């Protein structure tokens, strides 16, 4: 029997017609799925779980330490408007105003797994809004500076000296914060040596003159 005859036989068989109709119906069913197009992002239940957790927060002390230690693993992003950023910004931060959060250029900073991202605003509000959107879109490693620039001011730039009856821990913390504030430019009257005059000591490097090795052939 010729192939075309076999084929015709196959197509005509009613079972196959039935099959074909079912498949077409299924395809039509798929067309109904676009209703879920707006459903981009993680499951709302998971998003809610992430939102109520305080895992995302990083304290100003932690951040100050990272900056002072020149920790290379994080990206500091200011979500306030350009004017606020220009007036003052935490050192080493870049500015992605909330309005530009979802632009393509911003995505290369936010949607990557090379650096931890720390978002901040004056308080927690706008940084949290940015964080929630990023979290819905499954951007990894996005954190929020707890208290924002306001907390940065009251803990790092202008820390409060603990009263006499507070614990040693508080005094240690204050010492750290005072030193941090000096790193970030604040000067104190009781400084013996003004750090700003101190020139970073020039590293004296004695380079041993390497004897020029003649290209060694072979092994």
């Amino acid at each position: 029997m010729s192939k075309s005859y076999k084929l015709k036989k196959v197509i005509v068989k009613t079972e196959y017609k039935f099959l074909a109709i079912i498949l077409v119906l299924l395809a039509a069913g798929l067309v109904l799925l676009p209703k879920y197009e707006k459903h981009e992002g993680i499951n709302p239940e998971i998003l809610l779980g992430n939102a109520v957790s305080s895992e995302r927060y990083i304290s100003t002390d932690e951040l100050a330490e990272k900056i002072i230690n020149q920790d290379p693993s994080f990206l500091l992003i200011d979500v306030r408007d350009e004017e606020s950023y220009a007036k003052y910004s935490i050192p080493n931060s870049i500015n992605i105003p909330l309005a530009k959060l979802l632009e393509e250029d911003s995505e290369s900073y936010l949607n990557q797994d090379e650096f931890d991202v720390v978002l901040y605003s004056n308080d927690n509000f706008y940084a949290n809004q940015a964080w929630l959107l990023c979290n819905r879109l499954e951007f990894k490693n996005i954190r929020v500076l707890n208290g924002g620039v306001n907390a940065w001011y009251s803990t790092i730039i202008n820390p409060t000296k603990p009263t006499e009856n507070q614990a040693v821990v508080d005094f240690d913390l204050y010492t750290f914060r005072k030193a941090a504030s000096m790193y970030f430019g604040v000067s104190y009257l009781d400084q013996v040596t003004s750090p700003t005059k101190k020139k970073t000591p020039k590293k004296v490097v004695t380079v041993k003159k390497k004897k020029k090795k003649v290209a060694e052939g072979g092994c």
Partner: protein
Amino acid sequence: MKELEKTKRISIGAVLFILVVIIALLTYEKPKHYYKVNTEDTLSKLLTKDYFVALNEVNNPDFVLIDIRNSYDYDNGHIENAINIHTPELLSDNSTNIFKEIKNNNDFAVLYGNNPTEANSAFMLLYQLGYDNVKILLVKNNYSQNKLATESATIGASIADINAFIKESQKNANVTPSPEKKIKKKVITVKKKKKKVAEGGC
């Protein structure tokens, strides 16, 4: 004989396929909650800042006040006429019914917590799920003398001009302000994820 074998195989294959599809359809659960707004539109809404309610507007009859703090805080004191829905319970059946009812009555669900940031998570969740009638009450709550003290709150205000503070401190210490210590700006080469073009074949 061979032909019979072939048709047998095809029929078996077809029946199995249909079975798989039927099983898949039956086990497919329509997600209980799904977003009705995408992230870009949500961001646009956030930027309008038109979803805030001030403390003095709280007695509007169209507002249903919702305290999103935990029940312990709620029991210790809450704004008059507020109902309690703790944020983690936001997606429970009970809460969903409440929000649907508020929407059906054309009322607004005005959320508040101990500060606006607390209410923000609930606000954004609900908004993205399609409840466009949610608002945030701009208040902060404190307890003094076992009573709830509710005050107006502002968002995003800066408490100090840090630059001025630093310069002032340098002036006071008689330190010649050094040219702004340029902490080396991190040069970040962020690899732009190349948009993967649909690769055909292998």
